[in-house]
């Protein structure tokens, strides 16, 4: 930090030169920003402008660059100086585009630009060019856990891309659930009949691939390390343990069908003639091996009539059974009804459904089944009563509104139960009170992660693994570990294969990034990583507990140990740290704090309030930028500072701002909760929990609680954000100026 040389460049293009007094901005940079080397350029992002900056770096020893031009989200390729610390003052989207081009607005617009120059200069001085994470690993091997369709597809795709794969399968053979099917739902034209599962082909591809190492009858005994340098111990049936160096992991542990014994009212477990879909597949396979006639299990007579009960133990609002729709079962029942109709059109096949959901090209498949004579009845099944070799199905016919509709003498009843994910241990589950006389069944961990936070990846709802379902569907909350297939959400074979391909590519991206010491999504390519000043650490453990990605362990002296490769650079640890010893080279308590302090606060008589906006760089800041692009005007009294996540906000910034005489602080972050949109999963939630305590701070400062406002902003709120800002400014004007001005 000893010899830094800062230079400020102010662009006059895109109307900046006409709307702003750029000469005054240069003077501000020199006087207030204390940057002697400040220049303007007519068109800074042009080859000529960039050459000017490069020349200064090469010949004048410039190390820190402040660019006053467009938003930091624009022209990133032109203004790419990886060796230098770079700050951007957003004069275009943040100032001239959101202000009216009128004579009376000129003064406040200029004020705004000047403050952003001051903030940029202050920020860049507190920064350092990120040097990259030295603690990297270079293993390029992919571990795939699970040998079903998803796992095998992941392995094949990764291998074809040139990466070695280790595949671990719990059972003695590859194929998983799909291997137990007789046929699958068609995925090619004309979508009219059940098709070959393709599992045998996948298995032979995997076995023939020298790049794929398969462990059968094996489980993951222990997973240590971080992306690029995982060390995984694989326990095999013989008791032997194999150690593999792994770069990234794809967990494809699949699903288990919902237990039909939990559905006695639907005949589950009451008769061998009531089976689940997998049970029927077994019967169909047995039939195919024999004379092709599906027989009822109780007496081996050919099945003459069969009823399929959709949503068995699914979409249950009472909470007893699965609450969700598994999405594949309607198509699967249609397929199974065709097993009968294709062999013998005289077999009565009835599918009783409440809503028939046939994703993909299932509509054609559905129509084909109707053509083949499968009867579809809209109704809700209330009971299945097995009686000897037959069963009676009673249901509420929803079209004819007949509550006591029945189908008697049914040879076989097939319950379409849903998918229950095999997601291992729920690390957030509250410990269960032991019930006397009941044997506690402990869930078996799948990955056995040697992480402080628990042995498996976190789950969201219903036991499915957590992922940002809109933006990053495969990414779990453990960097370098991806989930794919039904463990992530219910799905069929076609969707699982798509999932597997996506996850394979994501895992490859992660291990490549890990070798280069760079962050994975969403800050992909970021070279900064959290640094901690351990001598100041009080071992409070907030960082290790709050890190949404389980990146921080504890050493034997109970100090935090940062696993940089597991880190996603959200800064939640930095926001959490009460003694503020955690920082990034280019983002720290100081870089933001210096900006907060750099703003010029006019006195209370000037009628120019100042409002600080801390805007999440993933959603709120782009929304503000886009508001600028659409010229949606907002108040000139706000000063926006982009932050990595609401979770990285340290309360000291808010306290500092209020102490400095700001009239209000707006925090803009993503939605949190079960339907969260936070790119760092828990960041916005944690940030909000911390901010909920800000009322105490306000009270000690004798300030109104309205001075701090927490807002949920989505990237689409292009119209709403300016409205929110303007409304808040009006409210603050009504409250009156902050009493802290001028101190």
């Amino acid at each position, binding site marked *: 930090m000893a010899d830094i040389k800062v230079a400020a460049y102010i662009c006059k293009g895109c109307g900046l030169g006409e709307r702003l007094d750029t000469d005054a901005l240069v003077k501000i940079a020199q006087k207030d920003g204390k940057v002697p080397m400040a220049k303007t350029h007519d068109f800074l992002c042009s080859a000529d402008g960039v050459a000017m900056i490069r020349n200064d770096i090469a010949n004048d020893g410039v190390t820190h660059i402040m660019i006053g031009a467009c938003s930091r989200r624009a022209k990133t390729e032109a203004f790419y100086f990886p060796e230098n610390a770079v700050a951007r003052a957003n004069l275009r989207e943040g100032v001239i585009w959101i202000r009216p081009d009128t004579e009376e607005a000129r003064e406040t617009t200029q004020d705004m630009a000047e403050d952003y120059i001051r903030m940029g200069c202050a920020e860049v001085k507190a920064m350092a060019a990120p040097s990259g994470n030295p603690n990297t690993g270079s293993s390029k091997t992919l571990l795939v856990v699970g040998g079903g369709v998803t796992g095998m597809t992941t392995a094949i795709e990764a291998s074809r891309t040139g990466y070695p794969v280790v595949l671990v399968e719990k059972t003695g053979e590859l194929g998983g659930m799909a291997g137990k099917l007789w046929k699958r739902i068609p995925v090619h034209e004309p979508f009219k009949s059940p098709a070959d599962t393709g599992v045998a082909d996948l298995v032979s591809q995997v076995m023939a691939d020298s790049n794929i190492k398969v462990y059968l009858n094996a489980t993951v005994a222990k997973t240590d390390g971080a992306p690029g340098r995982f060390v995984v111990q694989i326990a095999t049936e013989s008791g032997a343990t194999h150690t593999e160096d792994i770069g990234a992991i794809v967990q494809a542990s699949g699903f288990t069908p919902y237990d039909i014994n939990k559905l006695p009212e639907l005949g589950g477990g009451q008769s061998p003639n009531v089976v689940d879909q997998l049970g029927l597949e077994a019967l169909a396979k047995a039939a195919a091996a024999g004379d092709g006639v599906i027989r009822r299990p109780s007496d081996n007579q050919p099945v003459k009539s069969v009823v399929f009960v959709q949503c068995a133990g699914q979409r249950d609002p009472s909470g007893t059974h699965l609450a969700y729709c598994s999405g594949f079962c309607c198509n699967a029942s249609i397929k199974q009804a065709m097993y009968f109709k294709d062999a013998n059109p005289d077999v009565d096949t009835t599918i009783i459904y409440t809503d028939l959901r046939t994703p993909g090209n299932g509509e054609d498949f559905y129509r084909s089944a109707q053509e083949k004579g499968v009867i*579809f009845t*809209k109704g809700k099944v209330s009971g299945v009563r097995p009686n000897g070799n037959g069963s009676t199905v009673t249901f509420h016919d929803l079209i004819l509104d007949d509550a006591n509709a029945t189908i008697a003498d049914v040879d076989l009843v097939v319950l379409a139960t849903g998918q229950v994910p095999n997601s291992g241990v729920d690390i957030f589950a509250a410990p269960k009170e032991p019930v006397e006389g009941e044997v506690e069944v402990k869930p078996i961990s799948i990955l056995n992660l040697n992480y402080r936070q628990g042995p498996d990846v976190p789950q969201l709802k219903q036991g499915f693994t957590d992922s940002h379902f809109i933006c990053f569907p495969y990414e779990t909350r453990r960097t370098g570990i991806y989930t794919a297939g039904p463990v992530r959400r219910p799905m069929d074979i076609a969707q699982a294969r798509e999932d597997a391909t996506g996850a394979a590519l994501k895992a490859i991206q992660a291990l490549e990034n890990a070798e280069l010491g760079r962050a994975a999504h969403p800050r992909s390519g970021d070279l900064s990583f959290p640094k901690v000043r351990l001598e100041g650490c009080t071992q409070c453990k907030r960082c290790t507990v709050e890190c949404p990605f389980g990146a921080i362990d504890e050493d034997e002296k109970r100090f935090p140990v940062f696993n940089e490769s597991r880190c996603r650079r959200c800064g939640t640890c930095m926001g959490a740290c009460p003694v503020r010893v955690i920082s990034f080279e280019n983002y720290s308590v100081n870089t933001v704090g210096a900006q907060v302090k750099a703003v010029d606060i006019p006195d209370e008589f000037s009628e120019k309030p100042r409002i600080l906006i801390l805007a999440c760089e993933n959603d709120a800041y782009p929304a503000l930028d886009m508001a600028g692009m659409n010229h949606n005007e907002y108040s000139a009294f706000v000063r926006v500072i982009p932050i990595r996540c609401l979770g990285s906000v340290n309360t000291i910034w808010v306290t500092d701002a209020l102490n400095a005489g700001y009239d209000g602080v707006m925090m803009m972050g993503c939605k949190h909760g079960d339907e969260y949109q936070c790119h760092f999963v828990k960041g916005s939630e944690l940030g909000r929990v911390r901010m909920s305590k800000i009322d105490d701070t306000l009270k000690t400062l004798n300030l109104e609680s309205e001075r701090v406002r927490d807002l949920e902003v989505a990237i689409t709120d292009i119209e709403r954000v300016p409205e929110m800002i303007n409304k808040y400014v009006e409210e603050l004007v009504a409250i009156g100026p902050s009493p802290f001005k001028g101190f």
Partner: protein
Amino acid sequence: MSANTAMAEKYRNNFLKEIEEQVEMGDWVKMCMQCGVCSGSCPTNFQSAWEHPPQELFMMIRAGKREEVLTTTSMWNCTSCYNCIVRCPRKLPITHIMHGIAEYAHRLGVAPKMQPTRFFSGLFWKNATKTGRVNELKLSMGLYFKDGFGAGVKEGMKMKDVALGLMKAKRLNPFEILGGHKCKDQKGIQAMLKKAYEIERSRKTAKMAG
């Protein structure tokens, strides 16, 4: 044994198959996906005018509710506007199926006797085939007296102003009551109709026996 019990016996427990084989375009019934667009599009089906709208009839057929389907007045309400056919996402010829079921119920002799559409159809056919020309005076009077003499007189009095107006405009000739105008070749018409009946009867008998 009546035609109705004979057919019921023949298709025991499989009304859908009976409809598929006996009703014109009946093989489309299984393709209905119960979206209800037909019922929502039907201009005569507001205020629950139809006891069982089309998609419900299809479901009843699949559920084997033979008696209820064949004796209902519902499909007789169809005015052949073709809205349902145009809108059906599964391209079912619903109008034709409605007429097909109505015709089949009529054929079996179980259709509701005094349902106005059915009554009028019979009246019209008899009227038109008698001479080869429609006798409008007799046709409308026949409809007035459908429910007995008293009701007929009452209905006639209600419509007398319209009738007088028509007479004034020379659109209605009261002397038509004596027989009215007719086709020239009466013999030819009757011979043609006889042949048509023969063809129709043999086709249907074969169908019902087959």
